[in-house]
């Protein structure tokens, strides 16, 4: 039995970073405000423990943070860059998409920035509004060469983050900020990894496949219970975990079994990642489908402030979608 400690999500991130700095002398952590511990406390104590050359603030410049991280990784360091909110990742979009993602391919494998991991707080938080609530995974899903990973809990967060750091491809790790304090688990103190590009079946079922990631998994768990109690419907719940490259096999195998698929995410529905999953599943599982694939997502608006309770894909919307699929 591995020794564990009660940790919330931000503490599990700190634990992963602590393990990394301890075992990898080239590892460095940088970004805005990481030195004092970070605005979400993910890097508390690390600068004192490992030194100011390893945990340091950068100027306020996301394109610089990611560009710097790419260069450090190319030169052989394990570079862990923090973007303060996923909502602010866009100035770094060119560096991520045109540079990081293509470094190995365009150089014929002479150079790569596989040692780069970018972390950013992600998703709705109750009051975050347009610029502290975004889930930008769909923008990056369209970019071959990077990996995009989203954990649902502290145990997953530590294992997936360590997997991203170890992975020899540039990875973006989105951390559900609403879970930083709210999610608490017994997390192993020693390092461990959870495989990337492997979706996890959290609960087996026979009537409907539910696919989600991050915070939305907890919503879907409740929805699965509601569906069982109120409708007698048995749901198979899948946490995708890795958005890119995604585990098509696990999802398709499940839909072949159940014949119905509900995908749910906070990000706006048009062009959201549910569209990619839906498209692939209908190609692979067309004849197994009992009903059209259902997507319950954010509306095609910027993320609103006071209207958040109406915007988010809550359990009632998901429950209603299951009812429609069952009665199709």
């Amino acid at each position, binding site marked *: 039995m591995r020794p564990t400690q009660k940790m919330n999500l931000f503490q599990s991130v700190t634990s992963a970073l602590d393990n990394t700095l301890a075992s990898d002398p080239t590892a460095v952590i940088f970004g805005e405000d990481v030195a004092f511990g970070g605005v979400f406390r993910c890097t508390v104590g690390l600068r004192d423990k490992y030194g100011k050359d390893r945990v340091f603030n950068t*100027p306020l410049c996301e394109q610089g943070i990611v560009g710097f991280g790419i*260069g*450090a990784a190319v*030169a*052989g360091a394990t570079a862990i860059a923090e973007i303060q909110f996923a909502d602010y990742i866009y100035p770094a979009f060119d560096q991520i998409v045109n*540079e990081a993602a293509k470094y*190995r391919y365009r150089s*014929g494998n002479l150079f790569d920035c596989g040692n780069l991991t970018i972390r950013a707080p992600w998703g709705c938080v109750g009051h975050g509004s347009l610029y502290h609530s975004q889930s930008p995974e769909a923008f990056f899903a369209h970019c071959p060469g990077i990996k995009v990973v989203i954990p649902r809990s502290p145990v997953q967060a530590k294992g997936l983050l360590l997997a991203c750091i170890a992975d020899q*491809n540039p990875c973006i790790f989105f951390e559900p900020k609403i879970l930083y304090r709210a999610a608490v688990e017994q997390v192993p103190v020693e390092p461990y990894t959870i495989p990337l590009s492997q979706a996890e079946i959290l609960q087996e079922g026979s009537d409907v496949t539910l696919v989600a990631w991050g915070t939305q998994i907890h919503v879907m768990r409740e929805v699965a219970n509601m569906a069982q109690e109120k409708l007698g419907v048995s749901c198979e719940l899948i946490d995708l975990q890795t958005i890119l490259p995604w585990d098509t096999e696990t999802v398709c195998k499940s839909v072949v079994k159940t014949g119905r698929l509900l995908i749910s995410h906070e990000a706006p529905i048009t062009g959201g990642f549910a569209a990619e999953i839906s498209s692939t599943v209908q190609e692979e599982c067309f004849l197994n489908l009992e009903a059209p694939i259902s997507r319950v997502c954010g509306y095609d608006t910027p993320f609103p402030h006071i209207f958040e309770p109406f915007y988010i894909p809550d359990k009632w919307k998901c429950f209603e979608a299951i009812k429609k699929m069952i009665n199709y």
Partner: protein
Amino acid sequence: MAAVRSMNKMYGVCFHVVRQTAGLKVSRLLQHRAFRVGAVQRQQPFDSTLEKPQFPGASADFVDQLDFIQPNVISGIPVYRVMDRQGNIINPSQDPQLSKETVLNFYQKMTLLNTMDRILYESQRQGRISFYMTNYGEEGTHIGSAAALDPNDIVFGQYREAGVLMYRGFPLDLFMAQCYANADDLGKGRQMPVHYGSKDLNFVTISSPLATQIPQAAGAAYALKRENMNRAVICYFGEGAASEGDAHAGFNFSATLECPLIFFCRNNGYAISTPTNEQYRGDGIAARGPGYGMLSIRVDGNDVFAVYNATKEARRRAVAENQPFLIEAMTYRIGHHSTSDDSSAYRSVDEVNYWDKQDHPISRLRHYMTTRGWWSEDDERSWRKQSRKTVMEAFERAEKRLKPNVELMFTDVYQEMTPGLNKQRESMWRHVQQYKEHYPLDLYDK
């Protein structure tokens, strides 16, 4: 009044020193003025009894006269040079006094580059390669800076630095292989011509987006600083790319994070068709350095010794002191931007001829050599013949070579092959097998 006086004093002292001593000593003086050395700025305790500003953001004096600081573009930062336009040494103390062998190598590398450029430009015109960019007029910036570095120093370039790679020993066959995208290309045929790279020669593969290499260079330099193995980074870019946000990011990061890095700006007068007066209004790129707390110098880029001296000193200090240096090498882009450009649309033939005939890095160095009896007309004739022959031979070999195996379209996206890509790869081959008469398979390696 005090503000103006103190600003004039700053610039005045600079010029005073330049007149007195020349070149490199300016940087030493500027260093005394700099408000950072080594560690983080020390926090002074706040004391409001003093009539000195207590703001954490700047250390300066109060002034009660309203004056705007004048940007100094009329008589801006002076241009350091060692040779005159003909190639005569001006101040003998600045002659790096390199050996005959070294100087001959400079000359041969510059002229070999020139020869390769002529042949490959022509080959694009004939439809043999898809695209090319020449380096005409900027050979001095490449060879002078490359020679001043250590072979283990990492080079991040933009796209007009082929001479750096040539100086380090990249063979003609591999230049050609990349331009032809043939099976010998280290880049596996994935990029347009002139996007060279070499792991062995520490030359990071070129990418088309401009200025992206600038913050990357800062990160690489930071990693090298931690390694502590006496390695530096040099980062080349043009005066146009210096307008990008990434340039600002890179300069600021390298200064705040104390990176052993040389920023080398090739100011060649044009960004495609855009002249410098439409690119910036300040005193070029060198004047931006002090704004970042960075030691900066402007040099005559067509003077290979000036470029060499400045880069050598910058490299020594960048590593010894862990701080970035900015070198702005003034030069002129004699050729078109690329084979997709016809520069007669935006500049006169007279202007181009002036630089080609009256201020060219190759002819200035030749004059230096001939003055010392190191190079004769016969040497010139036989070298021209020999270099052309070796370039043509490499060219012919590259022409005959097959293109890389189409399998290589799918590898290196990630370190590992993914199930999804594998499926796509198999689907591609099935399709091509079925419709093989429509695909140029014979040109590709099996």
